[in-house]
């Protein structure tokens, strides 16, 4: 998988470019998030435009990043942008839509930190 990373207005925007964020690619996804946090980033936006399925390992990576920022580092957040309908349904079923703030566009997600 390719993960695009960009910086915008003080936030790191992470974009998985594969349709399925599952066991095969979750390691890479997790490593990218850890790397960003370790290098000092506290505002992470995950652009979910290309993703139509996240399995428990992919979601585990997101939750780990969130836990690290909120519980260990004490500040920062992981926010989602462009979440596609199948992923919205999944997040709703396990009620994680109440944990991950989600925005229609990357711009709005980035702005939400300001």
């Amino acid at each position, binding site marked *: 998988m390719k993960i695009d990373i960009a910086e915008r207005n003080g936030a790191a925007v992470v974009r998985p470019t594969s349709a399925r964020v599952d066991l095969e690619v*979750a390691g890479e996804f997790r490593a990218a998030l850890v790397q960003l946090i370790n290098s000092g980033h506290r505002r992470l936006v995950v652009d979910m435009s290309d993703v139509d399925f996240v399995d428990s*390992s992919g979601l585990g990576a997101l939750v780990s990043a969130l836990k690290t920022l909120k519980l260990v580092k004490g500040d920062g957040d992981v926010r989602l942008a462009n979440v596609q309908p199948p992923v919205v349904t999944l997040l709703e079923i396990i009620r994680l839509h109440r944990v991950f703030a989600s925005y229609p566009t990357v711009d709005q997600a980035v702005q939400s930190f300001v």
Partner: protein
Amino acid sequence: MKAMILAGGKGTRVRPITDALPKPMIPIVGRPLMEFLIDLLRQHGFDQIIVSTAYLSDAIESYFREGTRFGVQIGYSYEGHHESGRPVPEGLGSAGGLKRVQEFSGFFDDTFAVLCGDAIIDLDLTAALEFHRDRKAMATIVLKELPRSQVGSYGVVKTAPDGRILQFQEKPAPEAAISTTINTGIYLFEPGIFDLIPADTVFDLGSQLFPLLAARGLPFFGVALPFSWIDIGSTPDYWRATQMILRGEFEIDMPGRELAPGIWGGINLALDLAATDIRPPVYIGSSTVIEPGATVLGPTMIGRNCVIQGGARINACVVNDYTLVSRFADLDQKIVSGRFCVDRAGRNVELANNGYAFVIDDARERRQWTDDDQLLMEFLKSQSSTLE
């Protein structure tokens, strides 16, 4: 009297429910769809019934057997053959299937009924039969008015004031439809129709026999009687049908007993109504446990041997037999089983077989959780005050 139920279809539009179950066996509040048809036929004096089968025929035959339990005699016309033990379907079309039975034994020797095995109806078949005999019809089809937007999946007819069918159009584009009166897949025939159906040939009632009857000016009639008809053509239809039945819009004998107003259940339930939030109409199948702290909002149908954990929230769902709905699940307008989860529009939601077995699973499964599963479960537990 004699009848035939067409039950060989694959039900591709009702997937994934029909991946393991033929459409006539889809459970409607605890009973297979086709059982409602058998009951209806018996009530109106049709007691010799041939069921045409092909796809997953064993499921149908091992449930209905000779029909004794249902007060009728049932025989099967298997439309296929086996190659080294593997079934190979050889559909002959709806009319070809009838012809096959007739060629086999000359079974249909008087007026007979034909029903499609994918709808629930409460039609007064006796009244339809009177109409058929009064008109001295060779074929009578039962009609229904639908909104124009919905007619595209059906045969559409144009009738004369006396009910004679002037024109028959199979599955037209809604804007090109000659009327909004549709064929419900319920027919009465005289054996004379067999003269028009070629033997050993794929031949369809809707697209071939009916246009032929109309074109030749034969006594071909349509009758519109008031009746409820729930066609299970697609997965969303199945969700809607269960909702209608639970709301009482289509009356059936509810199985089990009424535990509280509008809450029906089977036997051997592990359930404390005072410790759960269950709001009618709800049906709960036998040997199901609903743990304290679970929320079940009707209209919801829960199958047999299910486990609904405390903290689970279920609203307007169909939960099939042997499904575990975990404390982490919030299900709104879904059809779920241990194998699949689909929303009310028929869209698949990947869960159990894709790493979310801790949310919904087969209740019989024992799992080893991965580190990610553990992490997520612990996180969800830690967030439970936010999440509820």
